[in-house]
């Protein structure tokens, strides 16, 4: 039996340290007038342990630490009997440390290191059950797709370093404030590429649902608090370098608008609870980006925190359900209301938060996102007014769809007739309870805009009513089928690009074996030809040699005469 408490204790120590560090920063005012301590711009990279924790950073840190701790506790039951529990638990700790590094650091390279280490940790954790083919495939896909996005961040750091002559984030902020945002479009689009990859937005969205074969607590960790959230956070963090750029903001708005609606629709038609929740994450992340695009980064971060809480709750609850039922297929569920009571009640809170039902935190933060988009339609932000209007409409439609799929999932999982008895291990339920309480408690003190609240609640209720009306029926075929196939968007990434690359690679390999060797082989053939020509003279007959000498002598004389 593997001893599990040291890992929980380790996580707890890290979490407590983070809490002690972050909580005092929550009240800090946003910061102005900072003078970089290292004034000489450096050409060469250097890492520094400088940190810069702003209130939003502190929130994200606390969220990450809290969720990780809960996941770790939860895992003692969920993964306790796994033979590779040790590597699993240690990777979770590493994951947390990397996330904290991304959130807290002031150094772009530390940010990048944390960012990539998270990518690798998620790769290893998604592939934890590497005996399963889909697990291996999902892990590889997650790694390659996010690494592709990460190139954006890498090149963005190159550009930032060259533009502002520093690798300090605050240094770059100050530079941008003093000199204006230089190369804002380039930096912004590059960072956008990175976060699109990391936060699974269109067109790089497909790795996230495919990461589902990983252990469910890991899914909770990745989806709620760390990996995908890092994308949102970093985009907001670097916003001062490109926040005034219309192109970047428009691109972000388009990406987020397309993603939120598509992902919500995909979630609506899933037959698998976990995959549906994965699409819901993608959709909710798009909300955060929409807020940032509307110029309200703090709103985006608020929604990030609230989403972190309720999505962690939902995934962990999903884990309990899977633990009990043995599968994540919705068809195998139903009637779990009575057999898994704690899970039922907490997940009900979670689904309510997802759907945006008062008084959960999801309601408030989502409303603030909607409100901020509405504000952006006045045309006072870099986002063009028309785009903002379109985004607002899409966001409301998504509220409808979100409420519908949340309701549908809740019904299919918990309503109906119970099939058999299940157990809920306490170390799995109390993290759920903690998160459920958090989903309600975090809403204390949230501001409320009555117009938006009324409209969004109306839309959400309509969605719920729609779901109630449809029950477990699929949508009409012409709508259901392409959505269930996720519009074939995965096709290029899973099929075309790998197949094409492998095809090109085979050609390259063949060319490398056979083609490039033309010049050495040609050289060899040429040498052989010359040698066989010369060998013809080596008859072994002395008079032939003498003749050759005579010919040579003549040639020499001849050349001498002609040259003279």
């Amino acid at each position, binding site marked *: 039996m593997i001893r599990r408490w040291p890992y929980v204790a380790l996580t707890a120590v890290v979490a407590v340290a983070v809490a002690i560090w972050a909580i005092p920063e929550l009240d800090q005012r946003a910061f102005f007038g900072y003078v970089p301590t290292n004034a000489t711009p450096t050409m060469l990279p250097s890492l520094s342990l400088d940190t810069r924790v702003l209130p939003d950073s502190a929130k994200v840190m606390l969220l990450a630490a809290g969720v990780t701790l809960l996941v770790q506790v939860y895992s003692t039951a969920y993964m306790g009997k796994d033979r590779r529990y040790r590597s699993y638990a240690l990777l979770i700790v590493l994951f947390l440390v990397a996330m904290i590094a991304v959130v807290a650091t002031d150094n772009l390279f530390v940010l990048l290191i944390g960012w990539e280490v998270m990518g690798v940790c998620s790769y290893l954790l998604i592939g934890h059950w590497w005996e399963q083919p889909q697990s291996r495939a999902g892990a590889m896909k997650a790694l390659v797709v996010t690494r592709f996005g990460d190139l954006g961040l890498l090149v963005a750091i190159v550009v930032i370093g060259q533009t502002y002559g520093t690798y300090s984030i605050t240094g770059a902020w100050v530079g941008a404030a003093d000199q204006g945002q230089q190369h804002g479009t380039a930096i912004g689009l590059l960072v956008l590429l990175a976060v699109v990859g990391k936060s699974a937005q269109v067109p790089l969205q497909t790795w996230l649902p495919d990461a589902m074969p990983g252990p469910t607590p890991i899914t909770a960790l990745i989806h709620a608090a760390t990996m995908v959230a890092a994308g949102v956070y970093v985009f907001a963090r670097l916003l001062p370098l490109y926040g005034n750029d219309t192109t970047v903001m428009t691109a972000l708005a388009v990406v987020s608008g397309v993603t939120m609606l598509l992902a919500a629709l995909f979630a609506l038609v899933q037959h698998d609870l976990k995959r549906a929740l994965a699409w819901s994450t993608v959709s909710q992340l798009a909300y955060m980006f929409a807020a940032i695009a509307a110029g309200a980064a703090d709103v985006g971060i608020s929604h990030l925190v609230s989403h972190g809480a309720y999505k962690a709750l939902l995934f962990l609850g999903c884990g309990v359900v899977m633990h009990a039922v043995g599968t994540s297929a919705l068809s195998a569920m139903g009637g779990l209301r009575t057999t898994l009571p704690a899970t039922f009640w907490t997940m009900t809170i979670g689904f309510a938060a997802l759907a945006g039902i008062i008084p959960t935190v999801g309601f408030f933060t989502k409303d603030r996102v909607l409100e901020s988009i509405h504000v952006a339609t006045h045309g006072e932000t870099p986002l063009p007014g028309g785009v903002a209007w379109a985004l607002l409409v899409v966001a409301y439609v998504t509220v409808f769809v979100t409420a519908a799929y949340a309701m549908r999932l809740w019904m299919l999982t918990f309503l109906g007739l119970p099939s058999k008895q299940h157990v809920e291990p306490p170390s799995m339920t109390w993290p759920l309870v903690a998160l459920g309480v958090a989903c309600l408690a975090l809403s204390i003190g949230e501001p409320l805009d009555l117009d938006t609240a009324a409209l969004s609640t109306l839309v959400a209720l309509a969605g719920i009513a729609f779901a109630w009306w449809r029950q477990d029926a699929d949508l009409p075929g012409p709508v259901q089928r392409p959505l269930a196939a996720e519009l074939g968007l995965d096709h290029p990434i899973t099929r075309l690009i790998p197949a094409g690359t492998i095809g090109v690679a085979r050609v390259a390999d063949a060319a490398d074996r056979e083609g490039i060797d033309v010049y050495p082989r040609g050289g060899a053939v040429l040498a052989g030809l010359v040698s066989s020509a010369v060998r013809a003279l080596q008859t072994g*007959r*002395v*008079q032939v040699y003498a003749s050759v000498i005579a010919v040579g002598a003549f040639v020499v004389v001849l050349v001498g005469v002609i040259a003279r």
Partner: protein
Amino acid sequence: MPLLYPLLLSSALFGIGLYGVLARRNAVMVLVGVELMLNAVNLQLVAYDAWFAETLHTGQVLTLFVIALAAAEIGLGLAIVMAMFRATGSIDVDEADRA
């Protein structure tokens, strides 16, 4: 007497000797060719000596040396031919490499 006469004769003998050296299979005949070429050289030397008429008689003395050397050479050459014949039973130069 024009100097050209001996010189032209020498040229002709040299060409003929060269042909003999290159074309004959019999080792002794090759040596005959060599002798002809040496004689061509001798002729030239003597002709120049007579034309230049200097007291050292360089040309004629050198000719004398050449003749002596030719004698030595033919002695050695024929000795080699004998040895080759003993070894291979033939004095055909094309087959000398079989020894």
